[in-house]
């Protein structure tokens, strides 16, 4: 059995390190590209959301390179993510593609079936699952922190040569992360990045802060959002996302221990208090939360037809009006042109910067 999995930010590094460590044969799909999207679009239903098309593309490209089993997550809806695996199975069957899909979920609450599937993938090592999950979350946290620190470091560099130096360092570091032989090694690499680039300099007053919200795939996978955070850093804008791999993994595997709502949930409550699926609550909650902290702008990114995000989008104008913080919504699909997208982001950042300068002047 040769396994493959989807690309989603640092998730592929984590899975690669895990499989290498456990000696499980796997193929990491080629990095997301136009070809990936083309392949996915060819086989997925036309109305399916972009994440499904890209993940399908990942799987089919990996299958061409020799993978025979694809790992994915399950879910119970109501957003479509929970049904992706079933759709992949149907599509592979229909087209005679020799790819077996394993969905990591407990169908009809049958936990034993979930363990059976994990055992299928990991053999006897499945017994170490709790330890591996804990290790995985620790590594994910370290990677998320490193990403933030390195991203912030770019904002403090003024010279072109300094920026180039950082970029070279980062490319080198990414290559090492992709090849990490274990979750521990991945965590060490992340700590190294954090130590190297952590800065204790205070933030300049005129630094613009923008929060990024939306559905998990669109805001974490740079291919979908056209490297939005990198673009913002190039424009000297500080940014954070409402969703990170480590927080998502924690919530997916470990039930919330504290009954108390997080700060973002409290702030978002008056605007949307029901879980309607996907990340609508996070989108609305973090928009409200960051606005309450006087951040300068919010950018919502989501794939065309994403149901929970459409609901969130209809609520965001109220949030924007309440706090006086502007919100930009970017809807992406397989026809999105980067140039138009870039123009809108630039225009938004320009506007936000001008507002900030006026506010400071007063």
């Amino acid at each position, binding site marked *: 059995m040769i396994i493959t999995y989807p690309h989603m930010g640092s998730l592929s590094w984590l899975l690669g390190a895990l499989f290498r460590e456990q000696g499980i044969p796997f193929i990491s799909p080629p990095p997301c590209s136009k070809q990936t999207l083309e392949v996915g679009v060819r086989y997925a239903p036309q109305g399916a959301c972009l994440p499904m098309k890209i993940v399908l593309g990942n799987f089919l490209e990996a299958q061409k390179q020799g993978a025979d089993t694809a790992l994915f997550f399950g879910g119970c809806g109501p957003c479509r993510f929970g*049904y992706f695996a079933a759709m992949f199975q149907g599509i592979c069957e229909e087209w005679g593609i020799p790819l077996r899909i394993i969905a990591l979920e407990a*169908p009809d609450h049958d936990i034993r079936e979930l363990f059976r599937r994990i055992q299928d993938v990991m053999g006897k090592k499945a017994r170490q699952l709790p330890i591996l999950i804990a290790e995985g979350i620790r590594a994910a946290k370290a990677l998320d922190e490193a990403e933030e620190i390195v991203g912030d470091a770019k904002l403090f560099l003024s010279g072109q040569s300094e920026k180039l130096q950082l970029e070279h360092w980062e490319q080198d570091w990414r290559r090492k992360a992709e090849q990490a032989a274990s979750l521990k090694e991945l965590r060490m690499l992340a700590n190294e990045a954090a130590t190297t680039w952590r800065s204790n300099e205070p933030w300049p007053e005129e630094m613009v802060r923008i929060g990024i919200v939306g559905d998990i795939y669109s805001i974490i996978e740079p291919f979908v959002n056209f490297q939005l955070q990198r673009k913002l850093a190039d424009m000297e804008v500080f940014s954070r996302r409402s969703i990170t791999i480590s927080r998502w993994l924690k919530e997916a595997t470990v039930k919330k221990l504290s009954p108390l709502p997080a700060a973002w949930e409290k702030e978002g409550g008056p605007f949307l208090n029901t879980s309607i699926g996907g990340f609508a609550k996070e989108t609305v909650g973090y928009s409200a939360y960051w606005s309450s902290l006087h951040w300068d702008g919010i950018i919502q990114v989501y794939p065309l037809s994403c*149901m929970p995000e459409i609901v969130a989008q209809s609520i965001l104008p109220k949030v924007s009006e309440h706090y006086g913080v502007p919100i930009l919504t970017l809807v992406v699909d397989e026809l999105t042109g980067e140039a138009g997208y870039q123009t809108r982001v630039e225009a938004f950042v320009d506007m936000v910067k001008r507002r900030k300068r006026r506010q400071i002047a007063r």
Partner: protein
Amino acid sequence: MQKTVGIPRALYYFQYGPAWRRFFQELDYPVVLSSPTDGKLIEKGAMLSVEEACLPIKILHGHVAQLCEKGVTYIFLPRLISLLKGSFTCPKIAGAPEMIQSAFTQRPILLSPSIRAGENPLTACYELGRELDRSASRVRKAWTVACENSGGPVEKRDPEALRVALLGHPYLLYDSGANMRLREKLEDQKILVCTPDEYDPEDLRERAADMTEKRIFWSTGEETVGYILALLDNEPKPDGFIFVTSFGCGVDSFILNVGQRLIQKKSQIPYLELSLDEHAGEAGFDTRIEAFIDMLERRRERGKSA
């Protein structure tokens, strides 16, 4: 002044409307309905909602706008998260109250009790009762009366007619304004229109659950797949299927695919997909329906002479 409850003629009104009306009437609250969907209402709704919202949600906005104009005291818009255990309606329907709150700053009071299958529905009813100043016992009685409300009578069918099964969400199949009088047009051509409400939803869901490895967690989606299975397992089979969907419907983007594969695997029955949005285009719509019916008639002729 007499307090009234407005009910939008949209979304799940088409399945539960009569029961809801009885409930409020039993509590001595006159019910005001919005008028049936038409072009102007759809236009108004589209202006008030976000562009990306699907047609049924835009239609809902149009109906709420009308009720605001009619000056009702309350608007009943239940938060229908799940109607059947283990499944959901759709994220947009679960979030509809918030969407309406955002779109309408000046409006009557929204009555939006949360309905989740598996939870006691009376809890939601008592919540309503408190808002409407009615005792728990009155509410209980009103609920019992409302539940006894059944659907309309089944008409006599002509066994020789072409049978066309309609597939899709109830708020598209049964709203003539939304589906540009699809049923009426088919019936004018002497076609026997079959719809999912002819079967018990539990039965449909069981058929679908047996068939799929992973249960479909959208109730309408599962019922649609179950309906296809029920029709293909019984005689006489339909001569054609028409999927009625709206542009951008997340649930349908998957369910249509599953349904089409099922139909192709188990039969040679042709299907037509009609995608609706607020940009009407009725002429093109009619042309496609006519062409489909022509094709079904030719197939039947060939079948007879074979």
